[in-house]
């Protein structure tokens, strides 16, 4: 295959922000969290990402405020480095090379310039054994520092960062792993270990999950798998330790945290309820329920004003002292499986896919930001192991984005399948989707495919759903009844079947005049207005997997792929097979903006992509091994601004972009070189003022300012047409400072004269400079009279010829440049 250098596959959608505990800065203004290979700094008020600290080459595994300087932050990564950042400016201060992958990082005020890291036991990389190591950070001014001064503190610790905590200002260090808790006292240089039996009498699992130490008191709180929290006291003597148990959570406690004063203990688990226990009055507790998804981490800001909880749906919630949620930082939710596939909302051009359980998420690709979640199921989400939830399994948009159809299902053991088909209409006023019709049990078995007729101009919208019960149904919007106060609702218009075969896919042609339904091996073509079976197309063996109508000039073709490694193209005018080829296509999709089609072929662990036109024998573009793993969903999204790439291989990306999702839930896309350059340029423009958080307001104003600056620069650079200067002066100068009209007339006339041809170029050049100079002078001193201008100009013109002996042209230019620079500097001063 040909190597296409300028097209490459890039990741989209950001990485997890709930991987590790976030950190809140001392002034509570920023929240830092590890996200993939970088650390993101969010404003805790506006939820915007202020900085992204890039530099690590491996996954960032921990973020920690530097105890001695609260404006600096340590981050550690699996690439074996610990980096120190200034997060307010987003500058990398220093890099410490440890040499071993780091899984978590700890520090305390007591231990100056020492950080504690968790690394795998070095003897063998395969084993899952980890140890806690103290690293002395050398104090050198270099950027890159080798930190090889390691000393082991504890062995056999867990790699989970929430299992180790410093107690009481760094006097001791507590670590839990499985059923053992170990407390290490630095002064005594001695460690005590406490272990629990595997199961209590009631059968609850006793395994430790997390730990937190009281900041003022000798007390350690541990969370357990069975939902219990134990408060350990008096552990300085191994024999006389005591513990008390708190039990509210019904399953594992995932995170524990004491408030800085030690008055409250916060705990969170899978119930998505933040529980606040009063220290020493443990029967009093406050709850903050329904936070949306299981809590993975709980943190408190150093002043205790803000709490933040990380959730399993890639979300960080910022809470004002357990009263109310003040901000939500939400990333792209990547669930276990995306059953709805990738869709594009025609209205907002957002990518739509499964989000939280029972929700659809709308993700803006342009802004790379999650817009909102649409609650499809509209039921209270109850988390309990073994409880079957309603899942959104299918969704479809109509061409105008006015209607959204969703299918949710719940399969219980020993009970019949519960299916709901919901139709949502877009409400212009609230700018969101409003439920219009709910059809309970639209089919008797799972719905295999669903599509709207794509014709934008047709009066009635038709939805077709195909199901495993062997039927496909057409749904239409009914006419509004006279007396009903409610608007029109959807009802079933037609039920179709073909010899009891199971329909697996359905597809409308671009103009909505034909409907193709694939019944196992047979493709049936129907007329959606009269519901007549027009023709059947069949190319056995193999069940039809995908069906696509060609677009635009190729609309006479119908393409289908089956599970026996065949792709067939039928000509609908002759109702015969146009061509077929042997290709194991797992996904076939069509670009609505062009004739192009994309086919993903899965071959032994990697996926190949072919982009082709149905009418042409040669593919436009093909790439082997696009990504590892199967591509499960893909979609063409229309571009807002068309690219003008002339290269043949990247022309197919001009009108739309191809996004695809692999089985590892990575959202990928193709990007061209031109596009990337454009992006780079735009990112350079958006360099952010350090002191100001990047709020939408700032973005508005900031852009404006940038534009302003840009304009000035361009005014300096681009040569104005010669004649317009005089006119401009004439028109722009305020009337009360204008000189006598007679004078202006002569100037105007002069400006219209054509100078001598030989000297013209030089003149022009000089004039340009003159003009720019003049403008600056204008801006400097506004009330300067214009009388001197023509003289200057004349002088300039003469200067090109007569004053040549005294100063060479280059010298003159040099001189002017110097002057200009000075002036611009003064301009800056005056402006500020």
């Amino acid at each position, binding site marked *: 295959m040909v190597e296409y250098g300028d097209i490459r596959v890039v990741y989209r959608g950001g990485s997890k922000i709930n991987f590790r505990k976030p950190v809140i800065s001392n002034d509570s203004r920023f929240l830092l969290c590890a996200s993939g290979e970088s650390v993101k700094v969010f404003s805790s008020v506006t939820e915007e990402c202020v900085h992204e600290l890039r530099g690590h080459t491996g996954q960032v595994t921990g973020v920690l405020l530097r105890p001695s300087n609260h404006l600096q932050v340590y981050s550690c990564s699996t690439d074996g480095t610990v980096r120190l950042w200034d997060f307010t400016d987003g500058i990398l201060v220093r890099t410490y090379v440890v040499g071993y992958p780091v899984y978590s990082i700890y520090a305390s005020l007591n231990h100056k310039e020492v950080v504690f890291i968790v690394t795998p036991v070095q003897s063998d990389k395969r084993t899952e054994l980890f140890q806690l190591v103290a690293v002395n950070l050398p104090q050198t001014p270099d950027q890159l520092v080798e930190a090889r001064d390691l000393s082991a503190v504890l062995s056999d610790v867990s790699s989970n960062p929430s299992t180790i905590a410093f107690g009481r200002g760094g006097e001791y260090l507590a670590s839990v792993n499985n059923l053992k808790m170990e407390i290490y006292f630095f002064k005594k240089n001695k460690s005590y270990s406490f272990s629990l039996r595997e199961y209590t009498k009631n059968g609850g699992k006793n395994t430790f999950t997390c730990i937190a130490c009281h900041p003022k008191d000798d007390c350690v709180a541990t969370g357990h798998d069975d939902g219990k929290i134990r408060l350990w006291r008096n552990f300085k003597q191994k024999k006389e330790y005591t513990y008390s148990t708190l039990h509210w959570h019904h399953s594992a406690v995932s995170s524990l945290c004491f408030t800085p004063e030690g008055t409250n203990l916060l705990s969170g688990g899978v119930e998505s309820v933040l529980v606040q226990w009063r220290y020493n009055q443990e029967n009093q507790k406050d709850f903050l329920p329904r936070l949306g998804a299981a809590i993975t981490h709980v943190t408190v800001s150093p002043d205790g004003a803000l709490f933040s909880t990380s959730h399993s749906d890639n979300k960080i919630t910022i809470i004002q002292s357990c009263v109310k949620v003040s901000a939500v930082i939400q990333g792209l939710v990547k669930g276990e499986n995306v059953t709805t596939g990738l869709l594009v909302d025609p209205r907002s051009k957002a990518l739509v896919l499964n989000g939280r359980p029972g929700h659809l998420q709308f993700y803006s690709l342009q802004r790379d930001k999650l817009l909102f979640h649409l609650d499809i199921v*509209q*039921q209270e989400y109850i988390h309990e192991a073994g409880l079957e939830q309603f899942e959104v399994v299918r969704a479809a948009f109509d061409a105008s984005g006015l209607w959204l159809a969703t299918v949710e299902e719940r399969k219980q053991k020993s009970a019949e399948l519960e299916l709901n088909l919901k139709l949502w209409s877009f409400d212009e006023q609230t700018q969101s989707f409003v439920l219009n019709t709910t059809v309970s049990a639209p089919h008797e078995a799972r719905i295999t495919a669903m599509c709207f007729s794509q014709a934008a101009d047709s009066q009635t919208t038709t939805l077709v759903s195909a199901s495993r019960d062997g039927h496909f149904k057409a749904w239409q919007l009914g006419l509004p009844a006279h007396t009903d106060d409610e608007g029109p609702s959807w009802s079933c218009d037609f039920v179709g079947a073909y010899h009891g075969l199971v329909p697996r896919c359905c597809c409308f042609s671009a103009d909505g005049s034909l409907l193709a339904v694939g019944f196992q091996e047979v493709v049936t073509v129907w007329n959606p207005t009269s519901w007549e079976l027009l023709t059947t197309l069949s190319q056995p063996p193999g069940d039809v997997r995908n069906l696509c109508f060609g677009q635009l000039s190729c609309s006479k073709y119908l393409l289908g792929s089956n599970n026996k490694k065949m792709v067939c193209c039928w000509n609908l005018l002759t109702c015969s097979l146009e061509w077929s080829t042997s290709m194991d296509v797992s996904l076939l999709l069509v670009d609505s903006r062009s004739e192009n089609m994309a086919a993903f072929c899965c071959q032994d662990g990697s996926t190949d992509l072919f982009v082709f036109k149905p009418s042409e024998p040669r593919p436009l573009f093909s790439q082997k091994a696009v990504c590892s793993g199967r591509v499960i969903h893909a979609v063409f999204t229309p571009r807002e601004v068309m690219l003008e790439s002339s290269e043949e291989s990247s022309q197919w990306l001009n009108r739309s972009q191809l996004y695809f999702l692999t089985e590892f839930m990575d959202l990928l896309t193709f990007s061209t070189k031109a596009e990337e350059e454009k992006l780079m340029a735009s990112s350079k423009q958006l360099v952010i003022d350090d002191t100001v958080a990047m709020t939408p307001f700032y973005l508005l104003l900031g852009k404006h300012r940038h534009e302003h600056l840009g304009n000035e620069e361009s005014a300096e650079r681009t040569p104005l047409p010669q004649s317009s200067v005089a006119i401009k002066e004439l028109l722009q100068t305020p009337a009360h400072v204008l000189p006598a009209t007679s004078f202006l007339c002569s100037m105007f006339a002069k400006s219209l004269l054509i100078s001598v041809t030989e000297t013209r170029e030089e003149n022009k050049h000089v004039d340009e400079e003159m003009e720019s100079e003049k403008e600056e002078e204008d801006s400097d001193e506004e009330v300067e009279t214009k009388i001197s201008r023509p003289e200057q100009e004349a002088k300039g013109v003469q200067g090109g010829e007569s004053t040549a002996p005294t100063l060479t042209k280059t010298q003159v230019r040099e001189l002017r440049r110097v002057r200009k620079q000075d002036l611009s500097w003064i301009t800056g001063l005056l402006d500020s």
Partner: protein
Amino acid sequence: MASFKPTQIPDLPKLGEKITEDTLYWKNYKAPVQIKEFGAVSNIDFSPVSPHNFAVTAFTRIHIYGPFSQEPVKTFTRFKDTAYCGRFRSDGQLLVAGCEDSVVRLYDVGGKAALRMYKGHTKAVHVADFTTGRYQILTASDDYTCRLWDIPNAVELTAYQEHTDYVRCGVTSKLNRDLFITGSYDHTLRVFDSRTEKSVMTMDHGQPVESLLLYPSEGLLVSAGGRYVKVWDLLKGGQPLVSLKNHHKTVTCLALNSSGQRLLSASLDRHVKVYNTTNYKVVHNFDYAAAILSLGLAPDDESIVVGMTNSILSIKHRKNLEEPKETSKPRRRPSYRVFMKGKNFVPKQDDYFVSKPARQHLAKYDKQLKRFNVSKALDTALEAWLRRKKPEVTVAVIKELDRRGTLKNALAGRDEEQLSRLLCFVIGNFFDTRFTPVLATTAEIVLDIYQCVIGQSAVIDRHLIHLQKLLEKEIYYQKDLMEILGMLDTMFAFSLLRKETAVAGLPECHTAAANVEIFKIVFEQSTCLYT
């Protein structure tokens, strides 16, 4: 923090007819006044002038009723034999009627004896009407002729002998004094112009014509005969526009409502159907006790009068809109002072405004569900008025409990009274197809939980046996239905040509099949317990 999402109560489709403006309009009549006549009521004619009395021709009499009287205002009895077609002149002063004895009589509405007698027909005269000129009478008879008579002189002006069978209906033009149309049992409609010797237009209805009706514009003609109602466009030379076949017996009478927007047809099948005249779809239907022979509609649709073969005249009066509606006492609202308390307070400049969070209103069962009190939630959902008035709410709560996996907990541990209440609800709503799946699981769980205590309480046992019997009945019923469906399928398959087309399946039969399965499971379980 998201708020609690209340239980979704599904908006179930309403069973039965859709309520449209037409049904509201045509249902807005009082209960009919029924008057016994002496024989079958063959004709009803409303006087064109106020107070719009109407003449009812029945057997040998013509009664004239006032708009609201139940007794005849006037009676004409001087007929030798059965009278036919008593009709008013356009000024409401004269009345003409045919008779079985072939004599046409003219009456003054105020007088008793006939003013004139028109003799000339040889057989019974079934049609008599005034022309628009007011001085001529059109008659048509079983002797196949139709004639025009001069009123004052009682002289026959013209006779047309074009029909080849009994002429049983005729209508005169309201706009043209010379034009009239007759319909006959020879299946034809003929348009005559008294200025010409012959008919000017002939249309074939295809059935013996029983009734004719001209639209007020007289561009369209409606004819009824056999089971068909046909509409003809006279301006296009008698082109048939539509043929309606909505009755299953002979259509006997036609009428148009006051606005001309609705057409009414009465038939021997005891129905009066109302059609929309723009699309000729049936918008309403009246049922009567006997075969209908005649139909009359008062001006402004104030009353519908129907005469039937069992000699009963049924009069329906329109409900008066001005009737004072029985309004319930307005609910006492809090006084203005209480209502406005604190509303007009303006915060001062330095005040820190604490917004009060809007409190979410939750139903009782939702409050319990929010606290995870599953048994209490079910109890509140089973409150008497809720389970009687809104069974869908109760079912929705049971479904929600099932979704949470706590239905078993909620159903367990109930005493006799609570359990019998629950079973009553299950029995009452079990066969509502919308609730069956949910209630079947409930019944199964109840049987599972309480099988060890069966036999201890007579009340519960009675309920369970009742449920069992109901199930048995339902299974037989559904089986029968399935058999009928099977038979129908065979018949359809036999009658349809073998084409390569897919047959649109009936979704109902699938749900019926599914229900049979559910019933069987529950039934087996309950029989297991009792045997």
